[in-house]
């Protein structure tokens, strides 16, 4: 059946490079998540409390991010901005694209989280003498965080998986690096099989860490 000789040696030789690229994948995903959380939170708050142009801007962002392919968004930051003479580095393209996408998806999660906390909580905190800031940081945000914790974990996993698109815009993260080695040795199957395993392990580590952290954070 197999008319094909598997050659794993070059893969083994390049394994340290692949693992290093895996670290880069993780870095860009985490960075995009951090940016995405900040912008997503802002988008959610704007959509809940504001009217006018800012509302439409935030809504447009969220709907565009959710209703177009992530690859389209990467291409936009890659080639689309080139029309305005703006040329980003591959790293910046992936970071911008992922952040844009994550912010859109997270904004909806945050909005759901805020809406799930009853308004009476805020009023109760305020009538206990807390300032608005105290009420938000001590009463509302912790409850919202609990609700959006699992969606956040899922989004991080998606960010890791999505960063593989970096391969198509010339970014040498795990997938890009794999393609580079694969095209040099023509051992495409072997390299991509190894990469698939690395992605799987990264995702499992994230899920495990998230579960351990949740057990620690949400003891009560």
């Amino acid at each position: 059946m197999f008319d094909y000789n598997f050659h794993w040696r070059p893969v083994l030789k390049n394994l340290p490079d692949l693992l290093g690229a895996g670290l880069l994948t993780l870095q860009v995903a985490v960075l995009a998540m951090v940016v995405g959380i900040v912008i997503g939170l802002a988008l959610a708050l704007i959509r809940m409390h504001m009217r006018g142009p800012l509302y439409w801007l935030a809504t447009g962002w969220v709907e565009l991010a959710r209703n177009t392919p992530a690859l389209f968004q990467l291409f936009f930051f890659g080639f689309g901005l080139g029309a305005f003479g703006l040329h980003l580095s591959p790293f910046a393209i992936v970071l911008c694209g992922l952040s844009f996408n994550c912010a859109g998806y997270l904004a909806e999660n945050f909005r759901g989280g805020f809406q799930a906390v009853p308004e009476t909580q805020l009023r109760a905190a305020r009538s206990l003498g807390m300032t608005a800031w105290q009420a938000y940081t001590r009463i509302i945000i912790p409850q919202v965080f609990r609700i959006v914790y699992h969606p956040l974990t899922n989004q991080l996993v998606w960010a890791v998986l999505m960063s593989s698109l970096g391969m198509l815009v010339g970014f040498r993260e795990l997938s890009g690096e794999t393609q580079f080695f694969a095209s040099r040795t023509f051992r495409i199957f072997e390299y991509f099989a190894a990469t698939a395993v690395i992605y799987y392990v990264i995702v499992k580590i994230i899920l495990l860490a998230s579960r351990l952290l949740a057990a620690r954070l949400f003891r009560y």
Partner: protein
Amino acid sequence: MQETISFFSGFTPNDLWFLGEAALRTLWISALSITIGTILGGVFGWMLYEGKLTAALTLAPVLDIFRSVPLIIQLVLFYNFAPIVGLDLDPFGSGVVILTIYTAALVANVARGGIEAVGKPMRRAARSLGMSYWQDMRYVVLPIGGRAVFPAWVGVALGVMKDSALVSVLGYVELLKASQILITRTQEPFLILAIAGAFYFALSFPISRYAAKLEQRWAQ
């Protein structure tokens, strides 16, 4: 006087035709994968629900792999794996196979959730009325559970439609690949990407809005 030859030419109405054809290919590969994948995913979901320990130890980890490895890696891996086992698949065939399995892996969880959403008492009542197992499945579980997870299924289907853009990595000329080709020729990235993005958006936005509305109405 010698005329200068340009490798680039502007965007013409003919190119719209080219984009339109590519958009149809996007629709075709998505529709095919989503249809087969949903049927397969329904069966998998039922197996996960009924199979208990056996399914949890065999089927679940396999489906989990397809959700933990980036789609683009799966596509490249399968496209290069098929010839090794003697399968002669073009990019379209490979794309359909992987997108179908990917859809099935996502739908399996949705389907299992749907079956679980139908209360045990309801099913016992159905069986007590003399319905057979399959009658119970067809006339009780399918309408009630299906309704509970329909919005989630729409989300999966739209996700696959957007992810079908990744089949371009195998050389299948769907909408995003076609735009890339046109961008290279016309050097008008912004216009062409806007057209491609508008197509995805026009398809995804109304459907996701409709699903959200249904979810709201059914929640009452």
